[in-house]
């Protein structure tokens, strides 16, 4: 088989044993790769009701079939497990060069189970897997452990590591690779910490066959020339996501001072124009001709601060949401999160909440909106669970509850809300509530129409459920397909281009309907997993303040998410999905989609039967 390596590497950390087994090609046909294949393996290998902190919770590293080729952006890796943070299924994505290296080493998927008896680095050099002591690397920041492992193992090794935050199992600890690239959300880094693994390092010298490589090169050249390197995608190179600061602020949906406002008076100090002044150069993930990464450098307290980013979400949550308009402090916060290995969305949300609790007199951490010194101290204390940082490390939901004000936690399914306030873009209310892993902007993106393009009215649910399910540009079914490819959000790939690539992969034509159905199949599988884990309609909910608190100013002034309108939109969404009023997929829908599992089925399939 071309493109796929056809192999899964299993690493049993408890036993110190490894095994290689064939990739299940029936599943690859149904679920493609990336998100889809991850979900299918998780369905089989996470026993229903499993404690996510249990050694049995697998940490899966899954590639897409096009990783390690000239298909732009398809180098992304998805990591997954039952999330220790949300209790849902988790798929978390990261760019860089780790996934292609996995393919060159000969693996489509790597599955880590058990717990290593001592702190461990897993070192994979093609078909040789070694378990090395991680003792010398404990406590190292992500840049330090990467460099140390390149020095100690192989200069060309690619490293997927945790920082101090992963070691202390912060619920939003990341997996880091190529220093600035993070599988950020949902706590995969915390799970790797629980497994006593500091890093997985890999070097691959093999090949990814694609059939007639010269013909494939010609096709890829044409694809780049005609579709990829055009204005549709090059905004990401020329400006990148910081351009959203002004746009979302203008739409009244920029999280400000723990979501108490949708506009930030200091936005122009942390917008795209301001970041362009400290831009050093553009960088790219492996196998990406677009190159969206903004490498910035500045100074904080006399020392150099650098980072690939921050991206919009970081600017929103760690900037305006904390009342911070000091670009240097924001750069430093971003660098600390990168080095400690923590998701910036959750870090910014939790620190913003802690500031809010202090300002309202409910807690006394000595934090205040806009106070950059306290804010930078908070992030370090949090990562190490020191002082009041131990309380912040509970996460927004538990922290707010502990201080008697659960309504101040901006989270869905215990995942903190990203940088688009639903009061300024109603579609995002439904998008966050129905996302498979909690509040996430990467499961459907109606705000792209509601505010960025302005092609859909922002303050209504009319048409939103249909859009979120079925829209080609940014609906859940399409994104489920796209993130199985795995193509990056920043390539506005369409169904024709996907069909062309799928023809190279499978040697046959794919209709638009068949492709969209594949996405829908994957989305339904994720829903079944979450239902099996006990999630109900009550979990498809929003933070209370979205329903109650009106903004005083900005484009969304006076708007709230009406409870009855939201409930009706949720029911409309379920109905469009072919789910019942409790959000359970019907048998007819699952059959139509060819989903090969059912809720009542005993989950474990014995391989080879």
């Amino acid at each position, binding site marked *: 088989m071309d493109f796929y390596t056809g192999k899964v590497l299993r690493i049993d950390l408890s036993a110190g044993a490894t095994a290689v087994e064939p990739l299940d090609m029936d599943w690859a046909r149904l679920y493609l790769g990336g998100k889809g294949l991850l979900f299918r393996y998780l369905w089989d290998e996470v026993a229903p009701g499993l404690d996510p902190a249990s050694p049995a919770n697998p940490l899966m590293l899954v590639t897409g079939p096009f990783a390690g080729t000239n298909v732009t952006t398809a180098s992304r890796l998805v990591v997954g497990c039952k999330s220790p943070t949300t209790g849902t299924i988790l798929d978390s994505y990261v760019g860089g060069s780790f996934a292609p290296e996995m393919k060159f080493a000969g693996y489509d998927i790597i599955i880590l189970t058990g717990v290593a008896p001592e702190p461990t680095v897993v070192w994979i050099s093609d078909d040789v897997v070694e378990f090395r002591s991680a003792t010398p690397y404990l406590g190292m920041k992500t840049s330090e452990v990467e460099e140390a492992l390149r020095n100690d193992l192989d200069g060309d090794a690619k490293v997927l590591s945790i920082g101090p935050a992963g070691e202390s199992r912060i619920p939003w600890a990341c997996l880091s690779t190529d220093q*600035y690239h993070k599988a950020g959300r949902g706590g995969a880094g915390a799970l790797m910490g629980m497994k006593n693994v500091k890093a997985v390092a890999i070097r691959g010298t093999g090949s990814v066959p694609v059939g007639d490589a010269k013909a494939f090169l010609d096709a890829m050249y044409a694809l780049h020339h005609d579709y990829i390197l055009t204005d549709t995608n090059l905004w990401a190179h020329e400006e990148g996501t910081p351009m959203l600061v002004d746009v979302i602020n203008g739409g009244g949906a920029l999280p400000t001072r723990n979501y108490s406002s949708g506009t930030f008076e200091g936005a122009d100090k942390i917008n795209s124009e301001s970041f362009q002044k400290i831009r050093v150069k553009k960088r*790219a993930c492996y196998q990406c001709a677009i190159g969206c990464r903004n490498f910035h450098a500045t100074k904080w307290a006399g020392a150099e601060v650098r980072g690939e980013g921050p991206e919009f979400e970081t600017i929103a949550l760690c900037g305006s949401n904390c009342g911070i308009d000091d670009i240097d402090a924001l750069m430093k916060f971003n660098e600390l999160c990168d080095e400690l290995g923590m998701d910036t969305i959750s870090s910014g949300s939790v620190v913003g909440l802690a500031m809010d609790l202090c300002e309202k007199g409910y807690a006394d951490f000595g934090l205040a909106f806009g106070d950059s010194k306290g804010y930078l101290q908070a992030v370090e204390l949090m990562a190490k669970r020191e002082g009041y940082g131990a309380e912040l490390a509970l996460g927004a939901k538990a922290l707010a509850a502990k201080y008697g004000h659960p309504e101040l936690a901006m989270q869905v399914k215990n995942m903190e809300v990203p940088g688009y306030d639903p009061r300024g873009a109603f579609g995002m209310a439904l998008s966050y509530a129905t996302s498979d892993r909690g509040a996430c902007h990467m499961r459907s993106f109606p705000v792209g129409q509601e505010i960025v393009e302005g092609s859909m009215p922002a303050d209504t649910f009319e048409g939103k459920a249909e859009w979120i399910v079925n829209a080609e540009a940014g609906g859940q079914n399409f994104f489920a397909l796209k993130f199985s490819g795995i193509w990056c959000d920043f390539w506005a790939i369409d169904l024709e281009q996907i069909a062309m690539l799928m023809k190279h992969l499978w040697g046959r034509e794919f209709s638009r309907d068949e492709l969209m159905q594949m996405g829908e199949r994957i989305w339904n599988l994720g829903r079944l997993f979450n239902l099996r884990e006990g999630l109900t309609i009550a979990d498809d909910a929003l933070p209370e303040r979205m329903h109650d608190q009106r903004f005083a100013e900005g484009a969304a002034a006076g708007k709230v998410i009406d409870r009855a309108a939201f409930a009706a939109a949720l029911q409309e969404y379920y109905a469009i999905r072919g789910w019942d009023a409790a959000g359970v997929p019907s048998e007819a829908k699952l059959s139509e989609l060819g989903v090969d599992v059912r809720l009542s089925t005993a989950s474990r399939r014995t391989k080879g039967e």
Partner: protein
Amino acid sequence: MPHVMISSKKCTGCHMCELACSAQHENAYRPSVARLFSEVNPTTGAIKGHTCLQTACAKCQEACPEDAIVTKEITVRVKGDYPGKEKHGEAVKGYVLVVDEEKCTNCGECYDVCPTGVIHEHPDREVAYKCDLCGGEPQCIAFCQNPHVLAVDLKVDKMDRELQA
């Protein structure tokens, strides 16, 4: 020359050139045997391009005891854009150094003298492999087509210029 150069200032570190190079020469994606590479420090962002300078260097040719590194005339027609295209026009004539696999004994003399580290023993065959400008249509340049980047360039030296005339 002509030879390929990677601008470390412009290069984003995407490695598309290495991928395309390996697909062209190995009939599969295998960047560990690419004929050029971009050395990237992920933390500092520092980048160093490693490419063959062909006749402008020729240390491999000088070192070869078997005369297995051969100077060949070549006409390069680059697919797509590159910084020097306006100057050079559609076709560039010049010389390229290629390995005569019949003569090469894999003695390793050239591996030791190459200043940019781009001539090696092939992992599957006991011969040296190096950049041959893809026989005239270099894929590395064709896959560095972001108009804001164009980091992979084609350079022409004196010896080539004489040939143009």
